[in-house]
């Protein structure tokens, strides 16, 4: 009897230690990276008018407009012809962007509009890409000013953010943790409603590609 008591206590202690370790192991899982954490891009964020510098590009959203139709100034040598008009059942959101490269020349991939409801709208293919931010090379030393054009239902405008990222590696490499810039367009409900009600009938994309 005198020897069984400490043995029992030791066993109880062992069980408790085991339970504590198991709980700790399960709890540690909550610190593990989620799928988005280790495969998603690295995002630099900012607001309208701010210069947001990601690792390879700097981007500034300088203005936001809405329009019911988009007209390309002159777009020679494209299948869409000259001065073609694009229309939509929603509304066109035009974001004036300025971009520069921090190091190497590169191009911008078609931007994405991320809405409050979590939807992702790719930049419209109804306007000639050469006239948008995806057209020119972005180089170190000067700012390129071009627009990004989205086609969205008017109700999705409030709270929208634009996501701009450089085109993926030129060698066809898949880049982990690619940089992207996310800019809040500063559209609350009132601003979004004002933007829609004052939407221009036609927005003309500037000049030569």
């Amino acid at each position, binding site marked *: 009897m005198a020897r069984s008591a400490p043995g029992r206590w030791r066993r109880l202690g062992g069980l408790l230690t085991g339970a504590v370790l198991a709980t700790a192991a399960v709890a540690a899982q909550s610190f593990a990276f989620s799928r988005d954490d280790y*495969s998603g891009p690295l995002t630099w964020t900012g607001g309208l008018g701010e210069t947001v510098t990601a690792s390879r590009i700097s981007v500034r959203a300088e203005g936001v407009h809405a329009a019911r139709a988009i007209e390309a100034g002159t777009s020679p040598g494209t299948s869409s012809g000259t001065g073609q008009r694009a229309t939509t059942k929603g509304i066109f959101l035009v974001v004036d962007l300025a971009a520069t490269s921090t190091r190497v020349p590169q191009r911008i991939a078609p931007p994405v509009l991320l809405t409050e409801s979590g939807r992702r709208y790719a930049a419209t293919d109804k306007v000639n890409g050469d006239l948008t931010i995806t057209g020119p090379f972005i180089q170190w030393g000067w700012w390129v000013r071009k627009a990004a054009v989205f086609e969205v239902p008017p109700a999705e405008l409030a709270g929208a953010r634009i996501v701009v990222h450089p085109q993926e590696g030129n060698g066809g490499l898949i880049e982990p943790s690619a940089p992207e810039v996310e800019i809040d367009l500063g559209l609350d409900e009132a601003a979004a409603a004002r933007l829609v009600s004052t939407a221009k009938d036609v927005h003309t994309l500037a000049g030569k590609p």
Partner: protein
Amino acid sequence: MTSPPGGAATRRRRPVAVPVAALVAAAGLGITAALGGLDEAPDDPPRRLGPGAVLDQGEFTTRFVESRATTRPGRYGGPDKRYLEIVFQVTNKGDETTGVGAPGQGGKPGYFFAGSLLRMTPEIRSDFGPDVFVQADGVPGKQLHPGMESTVVVRYELPEGRRPPGQVRLDVGTFEHPEGFTQEIGWLLAKDDDGPPVVAAQVTLPVRRKAAG
């Protein structure tokens, strides 16, 4: 071994309950199997739809508007070209912009929205398949944006000398969004195990004659 008192009486009570239960279960299974009760239940037959019908395709809500035959003057003064067009009203219910895609052709699977057009009867063959686009005033597009309704046109060029059919029948599939283990998979055509995509609806559209597009 010393048998307890009344041992003879106990020995006569044989354990019959378990074998009997096993026999009954086996017989029941056998009868069920013989009557076809273990066969896989047949899939729901495809719904039969006509012009104007609406189908929930998972990723899209699709209205089958019409099918029409159109003629356009040939380029460079060539003979007129004839087309068979099928018109859909498509609303993207997903969270991301996707494309109109193309139907499968010659064993090659299609992709995006038009990938759900599994088969058309009669078949119209061409080298590059039909032209698929979003019709709008002005520039046509190829994108389907979330929450927006688009008019999608699938345009087949009819081979020279071939008259447009009186009607077309489309075998239409649906999309499902399986949960990926390590990464997002996105929308895929709904299939039975590893079989071909499931035909959810057969849509019959009479072909309307129309002079010019």
